């Protein structure tokens, strides 16, 4: 059973950081405390991310996480989209 609300910090890089002009943002979660809930929260609260969010992945503690993976207090979250290294 999730608590009613939870606020998480999401690290931002590359085009996401450029879109928000910030290296991190806070997202308030309602009943869905999963990765999918975080992405939905970002879509809702950060319309500036708009077209950049489809296909985005969330990493938890340095590992890509499935949509249904629960997010817990203390997790380090990072929004990872299309990468361009190499």
């Amino acid at each position: 059973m999730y608590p009613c609300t939870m606020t998480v910090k999401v690290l931002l890089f590359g085009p996401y950081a450029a879109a928000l002009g910030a290296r991190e943002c806070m997202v308030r979660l309602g009943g869905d405390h999963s990765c999918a809930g975080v992405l939905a929260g970002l879509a809702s609260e950060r319309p500036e991310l708009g077209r950049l969010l489809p296909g985005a992945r969330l990493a938890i503690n340095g590992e890509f996480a499935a949509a249904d993976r629960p997010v817990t207090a203390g997790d380090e979250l990072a929004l990872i989209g299309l990468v361009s290294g190499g």
Partner: protein
Amino acid sequence: MSVQVTILDGALPPPPPSPSPSETGASYPDGCGAWVRFEGIVRRIENERPIEALEYEAYEPMAQKTITRIAEELVRKHGLIAMTVLHSRGRVAVGECSFRLDVLSGHRKEALAAMDEFIDRLKKDVPIWKRAVWST
């Protein structure tokens, strides 16, 4: 198995003349029949426009971990002797090297296959981003 991964500031320095020496002091490890090197160079044109440089940004803890995991998987999968990865962070000017991959193996086929697979996976899953510094 030997995997080395380094992310460092700016353009990569010139490479050594040969990969890591063997215990006997020879230029190549025992059993090595192939050494394949790839270097990623910053091109002058990006999206049909001239640039001065690329700026690389990394989510470093995850980039380091992911590159290492990919390299270790490929060393096991292809039976390689060693894989060394260097990648830049920060500004790398046109004509400079931002990525270097060295693969050592017994024979060329596995080295070439592993190199190709590593680069595909790097470009898909490693949290490193580049931003063009456009020419004025």
